[in-house]
């Protein structure tokens, strides 16, 4: 039986959201949810959460156990160190075993470096895998925030799943506008609603690729099990009428290549994109036909996770499909770059 390189890794979900998007409320409720047994939650500002009464016992300076079996871990030095310590203490049996990690990021932080950490830190990359980025969006204030600050747009661009919060303070037409604005930035994110921080832990997990064995999960990961197909253009008209957002810089580009690549060609093209426009490349995700074989690629910013060969194609479609979330890059120039590299390599 062929090794499944993903199966042994601990999935990590990342919760982002701009200031005031309700992260603290959500985390506070999540920590007490009965289904949080065997989950480690890494929190930046533990003082705000107010869990003192729920703590069973402090195990070490920064890891605490709640009555429901959830481990609550505060970041002391940096996140890398915290994740390393968590793994080491778990392995040594010093803290209860956990099956997944949920990380809360600060509202002003760019989540990209956290994701890059999982890909670029050898120790962390060997034991953890990114499951997904969950972004909370304040339904009442997001449109204004999008116009005024760069972070919310970035957080939406990197999201796999988006929860609209504070829906009770918004109106249906405003939320429809917001949904369209989000889809313009990131049409592939799954948009859901959440009121008063009520969230089921199952909504935060099972987002990423869990196995190198192809199946429906793979198609779901590639965004191909939804009705929208890769080549559909995102809905556009409403967004163009949004206040102060006439031309969103961040866009999702879906490229399809029917001819197979060699790995050398694909990686050379990606390296060229990174060297020319690395800082405008927010996220890349897709399946590539490498000399007939399916390989999943994923990257955040200029950092790529190791390519993951699948055991077979997840569907009859054996074309390469790669989604790029970019800033100020247009599809034609991206495509011509790939063509140029292919010609050079040929």
């Amino acid at each position: 039986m062929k090794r499944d390189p993903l199966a042994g890794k601990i999935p990590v979900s990342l919760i982002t959201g701009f200031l005031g998007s309700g992260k603290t409320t959500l985390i506070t409720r999540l920590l007490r949810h009965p289904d949080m047994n065997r989950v480690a939650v890494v929190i930046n500002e533990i003082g705000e959460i107010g869990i003192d009464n729920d703590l069973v016992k402090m195990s070490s300076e920064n890891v605490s156990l709640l009555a429901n079996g959830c481990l609550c871990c505060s970041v002391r030095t940096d996140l890398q160190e915290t994740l390393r310590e968590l793994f080491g203490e778990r392995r040594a049996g010093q803290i209860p075993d956990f099956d997944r990690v949920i990380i809360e990021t600060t509202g002003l932080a760019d989540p990209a470096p956290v994701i890059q950490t999982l890909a670029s830190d050898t120790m962390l990359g060997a034991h953890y895998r990114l499951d997904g980025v969950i972004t909370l969006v304040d339904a009442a204030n997001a449109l204004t925030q999008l116009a005024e600050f760069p972070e919310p747009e970035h957080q939406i661009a990197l999201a796999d799943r988006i929860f609209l919060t504070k829906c009770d303070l918004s109106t249906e037409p405003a939320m429809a506008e917001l949904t369209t604005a989000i889809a313009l930035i990131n049409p592939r994110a799954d948009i859901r609603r959440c009121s008063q921080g009520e969230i089921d832990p199952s909504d935060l997990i099972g987002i990423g690729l869990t196995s190198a064995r192809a199946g429906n999960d793979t198609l779901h990961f590639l965004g191909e099990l939804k009705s929208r197909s890769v080549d559909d253009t995102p809905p556009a008209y409403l967004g163009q009428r949004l206040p102060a957002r006439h031309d969103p810089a961040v866009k999702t580009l879906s490229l399809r290549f029917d001819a197979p690549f060699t790995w050398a060609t694909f990686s050379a093209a990606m390296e060229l994109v990174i060297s020319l426009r690395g800082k405008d490349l927010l996220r890349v995700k897709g399946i590539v036909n490498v000399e007939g074989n399916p390989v999943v690629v994923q990257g955040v910013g200029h950092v790529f996770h190791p390519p993951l060969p699948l055991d077979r194609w997840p569907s009859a479609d054996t074309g390469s499909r790669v989604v790029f979330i970019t800033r100020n890059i247009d599809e034609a120039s991206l495509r011509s770059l790939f063509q140029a590299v292919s010609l050079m390599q040929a």
Partner: protein
Amino acid sequence: MNTPEMMTPKNRAQQTMAHNMTLVGHHELDGFGGMGEGIAMQKTDDGRRILWMAHESAPKNFTGVDVTDPKSPRVIVQTELPHMKVRSNSLDVVGNLMVVANQTKEVNMKPAGFNVYDISIPEQPKLISHFDCSGPYSRGVHAVWFVDGKTVHIASGAPDFQPHNAKDDQIYRIIDISNPAMPVETGRWWYPGTRVGDTTPPPPRLPEQFDTGFRAHNTNVFPQHPNRAYVGYIDGGAIVLDISKPSDIKMVSHWNHSPPFNGFTHTVLPLFERGLWVVSDECVQDDGKDWPKLVWMVDARSDANPVPISTFPAPPYDAFAKRGGRFGAHNLHENLPLPVSFQSETLIIGTFFNAGVRVYDTSNPYQVEEVAYFVPGTPRLAPAGAVQLNDVFVDDRKLVYTMDRFGGGLYILEMNL
């Protein structure tokens, strides 16, 4: 259910712990999931995979489970022992032939020996013969090794073997079953000085609390070196015998860590291509009382001078020693020279009672690394209060089959390696 004590490692026995291993299937074996140290796979004539397991104690003898689809294991046969004072504990399978041990609780009881079964129709095992080892000083057979289809190597008493000390009752015996209906003994060896009548003086014993006897446990012979038997001789240490003449067996290697360690050498697994032995102890006392029970890497390039070069990193004492039952090394996957068996010179898999099943990468024999483990949460009604994984077998699909000593039954795991 979590309690305040959960943060104390020893009180976390109910928690499943996993690293690089995924549970594929689990079967409690119909309420009789207390398993011994005999586990073997048959590939039937119609292509099914049947896993055969010996029970740890009466009333059940052995159970056959169809694991063709490891996600849904299915019991196809479960047999009874004739009475409550005998157990099977050990078995091996070659083709459609299965050998099952019988060990009695006391001497001078029957059946004490081994049975040979035809399992061509696995649902209906047919007894072909019984090899009797009963006698005034014998409890019969504790462990069998049967990999060539014609020879059974056993750790057993014999009707005519009188030990000085009752604890030294299991010797190494070779039984030819070329004709499965007529098993015949062709050779035997015992630790010099243990038999009444030996000219050698009896060996000095370990301190009373660790004295588990100078007797054979695993008696392994591999086709790579058919003239050698690799024997874990319990308090006698690791012994390699020249069996080229079964009627005149000679010791060629001997290494014993005890004293100062606490005895019970269980398995000697040779890694032929690398000139190494992997030697496992068996933990036989609860609550860490005989700790440390380890797995050792021994440089065996010189028959005359085996040298221990490292021990496998042991599971953490603080997390396991007091969580219930035994804690420490026991059985290894023994690279059975059979097409259904996983074989590796570097990846070693072993059971550690309440510390579960563990996988080690021995690529660097001086610095062995633990690369995976699975510790099932306490099985229902577990008397020890924690799982007690007893034996392990890995098939050619790289699936790991491990079983609990009391009640938990069979766990089927995938190594994410």
